[in-house]
């Protein structure tokens, strides 16, 4: 088996790691903007598949298939995003005799378009949020507005082909409908090449809780516990955890059973995730959609189950049976895991993306820490793709210890050259609503001011001293510029060495 990883960034690196451990050779694909990206040098082979724009590279089925042919790859791992939920791609692989590591195209189609998916799962007895099940047709805006008034605001506008919060818009009241509709359509087109959107009632005090399911080709299908992803900003997940503070063993079993039914209703195979909205008060849960691929936040599930989900994906794609029964899962669930997403963005400037050159990257280490990163020191973060540069996940025996550990790990995580959300993440972990586990998808919006406050620090004098000493050394060294200069870097290093040798003592 040789696996081509049809993706980029941290997920491509993560998949390559498991392949390396399994002794399976890997092929990377890259656009012109990614030649120097970490995932390219993390694989045994690499093939250029086009210019920077994803629509001309990572989203081009033909180029990916050709890359397989060129390298003799007989399997493709799609990661998440890009072609991972594209049934045409899955079919193209099949036709080319390439194993697509994911569900069968039929299952992807059933679940791929949310409106169809809802019809399907409702038939399987899965509860859903009230809403218009059809995309709004050309010129159907007025009918849509009328319906919106019927089910009552606030409503959601969602991309029919969407997922991951992209192309989703909350509409608080009727007067915003038109502008939000236009934006939702544009974003949908940009993200999925399909501008259709549909209407859904927005549940109040909603919590986003999703169930990881796994099925093999022998009819076995189990759930692997939940992930709470209610810490979202503009429908982008920021922090995920498992177990969820509101999920009891009974609720877990019930949601798991429903999720497995949803999966079975489309003869699902491989790793999948059923997203639910849970009412924070009634604990009623509603099926939102099924993501027919590995999830960004899968590491928290791996940390609490001890599984390697990519290994399972590969084994299942080879026709293997699930090694665990549902009871094994329940018996093996352990401790608490929390994941924080590192974004190249500037929270102080309305989360403006900040692509650019990473001068230095220091990741956290030590007990219970897991890094999944798509960049390293010296990496370029291109402006063409998602701003997530990596994920920091931790495990500990209890939720409180896990949060303290994640905070410690974030303090060790330093990215220089570009602006990231690390400080913002630490503040989120300190929100008392989050600490209490009493939060919903509105948390970040409600806390936005607290999260951006600039509290005074006792270290101000130290900071001034550091700045002055640093500038002083700069000015001193400027004087020597003419001299045969060794590199900055080794100059610093020398200074460090001198000090290490006890300069002046």
């Amino acid at each position, binding site marked *: 088996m040789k696996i081509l990883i049809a993706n980029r960034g941290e997920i491509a690196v993560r998949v390559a790691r498991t392949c390396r451990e399994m002794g399976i050779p890997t092929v990377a694909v890259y656009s012109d903007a990614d030649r120097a990206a970490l995932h390219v040098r993390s694989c045994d082979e690499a093939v250029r598949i086009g210019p920077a724009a994803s629509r001309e590279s990572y989203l081009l089925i033909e180029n990916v298939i050709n890359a397989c042919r060129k390298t003799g790859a007989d399997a493709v791992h799609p990661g998440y995003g890009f072609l991972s939920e594209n049934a045409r791609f899955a079919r193209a692989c099949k036709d080319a005799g390439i194993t697509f590591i994911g569900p069968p195209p039929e299952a992807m189609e059933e679940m791929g378009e949310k409106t169809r998916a809802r019809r399907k799962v409702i038939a399987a007895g899965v509860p859903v949020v009230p809403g218009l099940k059809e995309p709004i047709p050309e010129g159907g805006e007025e009918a849509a507005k009328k319906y919106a008034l019927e089910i009552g605001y606030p409503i959601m506008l969602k991309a029919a082909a969407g997922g991951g919060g*992209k192309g989703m818009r909350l509409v608080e009241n009727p007067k915003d409908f038109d502008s939000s509709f236009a*934006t939702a359509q*544009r*974003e949908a087109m*940009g*993200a999925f090449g399909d501008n259709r959107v549909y209407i859904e009632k927005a549940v109040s005090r909603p919590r986003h809780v999703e169930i990881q399911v796994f099925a093999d080709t022998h009819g076995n299908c189990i759930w692997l516990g939940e992930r709470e992803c209610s810490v979202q900003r503009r429908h982008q997940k920021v922090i995920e955890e498992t177990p969820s503070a509101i999920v009891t063993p009974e609720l877990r079993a019930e949601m798991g059973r429903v999720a497995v039914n949803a999966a079975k209703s489309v003869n699902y195979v491989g790793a999948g995730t059923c997203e639910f909205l849970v009412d924070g008060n009634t604990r009623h849960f509603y099926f939102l959609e099924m993501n027919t691929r590995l999830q960004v936040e899968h590491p928290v599930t791996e940390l609490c189950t001890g599984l390697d989900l990519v290994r399972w994906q590969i084994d299942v794609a080879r026709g293997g049976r699930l090694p665990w029964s549902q009871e094994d899962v329940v018996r093996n669930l352990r401790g608490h895991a929390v994941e924080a997403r590192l974004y*190249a963005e500037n929270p102080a*400037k*309305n*989360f*403006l*993306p*900040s*692509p650019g050159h990473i*001068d*230095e990257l220091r990741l956290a280490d030590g007990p219970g820490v897991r890094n999944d990163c798509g960049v390293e*020191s010296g990496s370029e973060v291109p*402006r*063409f*793709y*998602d*701003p997530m540069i990596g994920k920091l996940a931790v495990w500990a025996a209890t939720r409180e210890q896990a949060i303290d550990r994640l905070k410690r790990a974030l*303090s060790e995580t*330093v990215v*220089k*050259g570009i602006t990231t959300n690390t*400080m913002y993440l*630490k503040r989120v972990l300190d929100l008392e609503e989050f600490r209490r586990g009493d939060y919903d998808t509105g948390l970040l919006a409600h806390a936005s001011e607290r999260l951006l406050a*600039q*509290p*005074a*620090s006792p*270290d*101000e*004098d*130290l*900071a*001034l*001293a*550091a*700045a*002055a*000493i*640093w*500038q*002083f*050394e700069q*000015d001193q060294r400027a004087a020597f510029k003419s001299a045969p200069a060794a590199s900055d*870097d080794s100059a*610093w*290093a020398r*200074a*460090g060495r001198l*000090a*290490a040798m006890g*300069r*002046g*003592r």
Partner: protein
Amino acid sequence: MRYHATIRGEDRVVEVTTREGGYRVVIDGRALDVDAVHLKGGGLSLVAGSRSARCDIQPGKDGKLDILIGDTIHELELLDERKLRMRKAGGKFSAEGPQRIDAPMPGKVVRVLVKVGDEVTEGQGLVVVEAMKMENELKSPKAGKISELLAVEGAAVESGAKLVVVT
């Protein structure tokens, strides 16, 4: 060496001299003996008294420095006598006079919300730029009139490209 610093809106005078085993730093008259070690990547390991701190330093434009210590980023500005004089001569930048709105990062202009001659209020949206699949609305820094408009819908723009001028 003598520096004029601004931190959290306050001006400070910071003097640095080398001394055996490190530096003497005097901040508004308060002396601090600091042992500093330079780290790869330009950071500093400071020991002042018994306090130990790792300082990561991110230099910005015209004297701006971000200093990361623990869980706080200290944003400050540091000028020596000469730069200070130049600065004084130049006068501080403010929302008075014509304001130029530049592209804050490389991206694509998806919408232009104004045309030349429009009266705009402070905070009013002018242009929407998309990067990394996110839309970002650029707002007017002041009330005034659109005197120049270079942003074109659909055009790719580099970071710092002039988009609009409000007079």
